[in-house]
């Protein structure tokens, strides 16, 4: 087992910078998800950890061992590829035993370890099967088993669920999480699917354009996004963000949202930091954290579209940059054209500086 330290990691491909100064410390036995849209640098980071690519600058340490110049076959890293990269011309046994065979392990040891891993992953009845006609969940288990048999300290998974259909993904998520508990390795999991990151990871590292945006526990990232990107990216749909400026009112500091009127008073912590400034900000709240006003006070906005997705209803209101979404647990009975008055849950309101994009954090 091993912790991973990425220090000032930079990767350039010619003039293109795929990753700029990444600092990330992954604890021993931790399940870390690298989350971000395509091209954010998450796979590049992963490939550098595995040794498939050399960093342009910076260091990668496993525990206190510097990995510079250590070839990928000697890093003790298990890697599960997006499409599993199963050796289709071999049997399941051939795949599982591959690493041990290449290192010239004695036959008795190979048989013992293949047996143990197969038992753990429920592959025993499939050992003699050719790997070219197996279903995806079995392929995934073979891919994991093939790496796990080498007892790597670190497991890297590159979007292993992106080829799987939605129903199956839910099953596999549970299975993967279960496997990690079984093997207790440090796991780095690359994904663009926040649901996967949220449900499986101990911590999430959100990345965009080669820059690490925020690292934190899933709920922490969800509740306290560090900046506008994270606020928009995390959550389905993402956080509502309305442009405005701070203003004083009878009830305390509010955000003047222009044509939409003023927001309900801000929580005291944020208000204290914001008071006195007049810069443009974004007023943010989660679509799930709104209620319909009972006294007519709140944000009055016309309904533009209603999305019913079974248990929940997503109501789109307003238009352009002054549009928001509200998620209701039941069929809200909203009708297009009707004006709804929304009240964001006061405690979960977040404010972002429009210039820097950073969240305004309550002090202390």
């Amino acid at each position, binding site marked *: 087992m091993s912790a991973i330290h990425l220090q000032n990691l930079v990767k350039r491909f010619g003039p293109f910078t795929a990753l700029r100064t990444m600092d990330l410390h992954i604890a021993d036995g931790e399940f870390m998800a690298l989350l971000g849209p395509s091209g954010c640098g998450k796979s590049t980071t992963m490939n550098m950890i*595995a040794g*498939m690519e050399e960093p342009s600058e910076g260091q990668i340490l496993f525990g206190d061992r510097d990995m510079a110049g250590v070839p*990928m*076959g*000697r890093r003790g*890293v*298990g*890697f599960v*590829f*997006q*499409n599993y*990269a*199963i*050796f*289709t*011309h071999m049997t399941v046994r051939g795949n599982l035993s*591959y*690493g041990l065979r*290449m*290192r010239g392990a004695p036959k008795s040891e190979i048989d013992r370890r293949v047996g143990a891993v197969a038992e753990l992953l429920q592959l025993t009845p499939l050992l003699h099967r*050719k790997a*070219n006609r197996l279903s995806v969940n079995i392929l995934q288990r073979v891919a994991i088993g*093939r*790496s796990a048999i*080498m007892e790597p300290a670190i497991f890297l998974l590159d979007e292993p669920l992106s080829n799987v259909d939605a129903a199956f993904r839910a099953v596999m998520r549970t299975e993967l999480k279960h496997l990690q508990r079984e093997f207790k390795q440090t796991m780095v999991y690359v994904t663009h699917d926040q649901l996967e990151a949220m449900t499986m990871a101990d911590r999430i590292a959100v990345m965009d354009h080669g820059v690490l945006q925020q690292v934190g526990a899933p709920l922490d990232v969800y509740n306290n996004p560090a900046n506008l990107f994270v606020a928009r990216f995390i959550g389905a749909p993402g956080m509502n963000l309305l442009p405005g400026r701070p203003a004083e009112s009878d009830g305390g500091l509010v955000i003047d949202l222009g044509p939409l009127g003023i927001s309900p008073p801000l929580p005291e912590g944020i208000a204290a930091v914001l008071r006195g400034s007049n810069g443009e900000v974004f007023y943010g709240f989660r679509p799930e954290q709104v209620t319909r006003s009972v006294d007519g006070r709140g944000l009055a906005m016309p309904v533009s579209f209603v999305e019913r997705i079974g248990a929940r209803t997503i109501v789109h209101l307003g238009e352009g940059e002054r549009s928001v979404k509200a998620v209701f647990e039941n069929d809200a009975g909203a009708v297009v054209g009707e004006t709804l008055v929304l009240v964001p849950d006061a405690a979960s309101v977040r404010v972002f500086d429009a210039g820097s994009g950073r969240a305004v954090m309550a002090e202390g």
Partner: protein
Amino acid sequence: MTMATLPSTLAPAVPADKPENESARLGFRLTLPAQILVLFIAVFPLLMQLYISLSDWAPLSGVEWWNAWELWNSFANYSDLAADTRFWSALWCTALVMVICVPAEFLLGLALATLFADDFPGKRVFYSILLMPMMVVPAVAGYMFFMLFQSGGPVNDILSALTGRTVAIAWLSDPTLAFIAVVIADIWQWTPLMFLILLAGLVGVPDDQIKAATLLGANAWQRFTTIVLPKMKTIIIIALAIRVIENFKIFDTLFIMTGGGPGVATETISVYVYKVTTQDLIWGYVAAIALAILVVLSVVAVFAMKRMAKARELAA
């Protein structure tokens, strides 16, 4: 004629009792023209050849070929063939060329393909140059090598320059050296084809499987033998089958360089058949030789196809 019957087949609603039978009959009618064509270009000549091979028929024997039964000689052609030392020597020569050329072309082609699977400066230029021998008309290539291997030719000039002595080897007049020259010409001309086919196979090997093998600790040689070669098996068999069959028929380059000589030192099956056909004019015998070759090649082809199907099954 077959087309005219089509509408009447299609017009009635599909009869309820035997629809498969009906569609099979329609299929037969649709493929009939192609089948007739195949009959004429493959089956008919084959039967004609078989027929003639059982007679002493020759273009100058005074009877039309369909009356060759008048010259029936039972199986004399085949028994002659079994005793024909020149035929066996030609077969031996052909086999010898093949067992030297095909493996050499394969190994060279594989080495070059491995080299070209990675990027290096000037790759495109070298790639074009490398493919050029294949584009040269075999007769021209034959003439080129004929000139190169003259006793006053460039090959001897280079050897003279290297050794510092005047070298005047009569390459094409010495049985062994002529054979070597012919082999060199064949390898020169056909390595590119091998290279091209093997390169296609090599780039088709999934990159992530190679990476996966590397991550599991396999070294370069282990990756090559456990991942690359098994994945290329089908294409290797195709490449070898093509070259074995083509090489068995080796003729044009060789004929221009040596004419099968000196003596019969480089006389391959094709050269022998050519000589019997054009000089001895005993076509009944030629037909018998050709059929014998066909049988040999068919066995090779069937074997190759079986291995191919099996390899595809394994590699899929």
